[in-house]
């Protein structure tokens, strides 16, 4: 098979490296390089300052809050008592935190599996040219462009048990047995929320995977066909191996996006019934803004960041290894 020699070529258009300077001859030393570096920093300073103010500062502020005893009154007095890991202790010893972590994992895993498979299937469909393909692809993007508040409200209405479109439809076709109180039954609220999130996330997956598919060299398929490979074999032995790097990037981005979803769940169920859809971001929000435990909320927020961070580090390592091997 030809697969092993080409993956790097395929990855280029999709992967977000975009550091064109990295390749150039740089070690020429002397004043030119120094001057160049200085000019480079000068030019990127506005962007770096912006990132510092909007991303680094909140992160550091959050970390700082998470190691102090802070309630609303303390915000005014500025009297923050350092309490080490107390907030973290309190958070990890609370059953509700681990429950939220479990819900978050289920929500993320469920969303990713379906978003990715459906997105991939649709990408395979749209990579073929057929009439109105562009129109349909554009329509699909609507789901992604809608604000989460709107999608959430839409699904809340559709899944409503007494007057929702979903149950109404089942009733019309005589399948009343399948009608269900999706969002108000604790055992099905999470699947209901996942379904809404899958609907929101499919276009994003489809689009990125489609770009990956389009960048596969068509001559590879021709060669495989000449060698006698059927459609299934071409998918299994040409498409899938070549799509691996793209798939990894899509899944990683999906994981980061999904793990932090707040608004959609907030609108759909507010974390209920009981606590069946309380994902971690919702738990953090409740600790800080509903129960007024700002230090604890900050600690939980930091822990919430860990998962995507670990995954991102693993991914980058893998990328670098692949880069070194190539």
């Amino acid at each position: 098979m030809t697969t092993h020699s080409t993956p790097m070529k395929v990855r280029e258009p999709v992967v977000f490296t975009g550091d064109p300077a990295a390749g150039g001859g740089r070690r020429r030393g002397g004043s030119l390089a120094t001057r160049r570096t200085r000019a480079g920093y000068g030019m990127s300073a506005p962007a770096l300052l912006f990132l510092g103010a909007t991303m680094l500062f909140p992160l550091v502020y959050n970390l700082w809050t998470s190691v102090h005893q802070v309630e609303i009154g303390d915000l005014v007095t500025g009297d923050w008592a350092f309490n080490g890991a107390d907030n973290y202790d309190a958070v990890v010893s609370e059953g509700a935190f681990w429950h939220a972590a479990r819900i978050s994992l289920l929500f993320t895993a469920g969303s990713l599996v379906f978003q990715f498979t459906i997105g991939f299937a649709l990408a395979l469909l749209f990579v073929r040219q057929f009439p109105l393909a562009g129109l349909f692809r554009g329509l699909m993007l609507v789901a992604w462009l809608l604000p989460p508040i709107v999608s959430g409200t839409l699904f809340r209405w559709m899944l409503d048990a007494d007057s929702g479109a979903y149950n109404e439809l089942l009733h019309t076709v005589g399948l009343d047995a399948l009608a269900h109180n999706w969002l108000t039954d604790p055992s099905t609220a999470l699947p209901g929320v996942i379904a809404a999130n899958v609907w929101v996330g499919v276009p994003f997956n489809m689009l990125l995977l489609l770009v990956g598919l389009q960048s596969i060299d068509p001559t590879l398929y021709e060669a495989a066909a000449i060698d006698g490979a059927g459609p299934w074999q071409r998918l299994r032995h040409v498409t899938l191996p070549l799509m691996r790097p793209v798939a990894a990037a899509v899944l990683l981005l999906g994981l980061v996006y999904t793990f932090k979803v707040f608004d959609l769940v907030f609108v759909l169920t507010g974390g209920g019934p009981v606590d069946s859809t309380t994902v971690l971001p919702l738990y953090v929000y409740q600790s800080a803004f509903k129960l007024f435990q700002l230090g604890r909320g900050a600690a939980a927020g930091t822990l919430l960041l860990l998962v995507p961070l670990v995954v991102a580090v693993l991914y980058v390592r893998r990328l670098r290894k692949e880069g070194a091997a190539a």
Partner: protein
Amino acid sequence: MANRANRPPAAAGRSPLGRRSFLRISGSGLLAAGLTGSLTACGGGGGGSSSKNLVWWDYLVEDARQPGIKALIAAIEKNVPGLKITRRTFPYAELEPAIIKGAASGDLPDLAIIDNTSMNSLAPQGLLTDLTDRVKEWGQADAYYKGPWSSGVVDGKTYSVPNNANCLALYYNTELLESAGVEPPKTWDELSAAARKLTKGSTFGLAMSAIKTEEGVFQLLPFLWSAGADLDTFATGGATALSYLGDLVKAGALSKQCVGWTQQDVNNQFTSGRAAMQINGPWQLPGLKQQSKVKWGVVPIPVDKEPASCLGGENWVILKTSGKADQAWRAIEYSQRKKPLAAYLGSVGLLPARSDMADSGDWATDPTLKVFVREFGNARPRSYGEHYPQMSKAMAEALQATLTGSSSPGAAAKKAADAMTPLLSK
């Protein structure tokens, strides 16, 4: 994420020294930004007393209420010489977070009209000005209903003056009750029988809010109190109230969807004829009077052992960071004089918390308003101290666990009681 994490190693390989100095520069830049931030915060916290502007926050955002509030502000400005009021409004759910953010950034108002449950968390936090001496000198505390007044008293000190009060009652669809031959219920047994009898087709007998927020707890508490219980006896009394409501859901007389309904959703069910009775507050009266789809009446919430309703409403507070407490107090004091109070409460559709006004104006003549005003005598505030938000969460979860059938009333009540007991004694 992948992209950013990808970059530093490359940069480090190139010129470690440059990177370090970059960190130093950006670090001091950030520090400077942080310092300016806290300096402005101090300025704001000090009250900026040079200006005579009094900053006022509230969440009374409904269009119909704006003329009344604007008139009140104009009257205060006229009555207190030299006073200028700058008003800022928030949606209901945004006011508390805005106060938290304001506390962090030093941008807090001088006075605010807040939900009376917020007193639980804000007063012990030292965010509010102690009004005890001013109130004593003023001498009108006795003119208020006991419930609303005591919602502003924390640890023996007075932190607020009630602006208005509300509570819950039972609305019923006159036509549906007549055609089913049902009288408006007075007791739990009658309510349960009526709700079952009125449930037909797509119409449920009763609608109430059991959403997982304070709104759901607001609706649960009358049942808890009416069973003769309170938060410290939730394990038993809570089980009684929860199993009563759970049975209504099991019988199909109360929709399971109520665990997702706000009180506004409940009212929509009622006005669209999908619920024959609803539990709701007086803020629905103006809307109900305007619509003509449903003919309705209102009675007190049916009683088990003792009559009970939950007290809602808004209180005036002066933030502790304000440098203009005296002016703010004069504004509050003016707003509570009977004549201007009657004028603006009437125009914005709110009910007075002063018992000496119950026999004046619409409150004495309108039979539906009278039901609520009389209920104030039975309405209790939710004054449970600083940890009330956690207790509220525990009760909301118990309510939802029971109504969705994921837990028995007894087990749900016990779990909530276990969570609340240590908080109550704190």
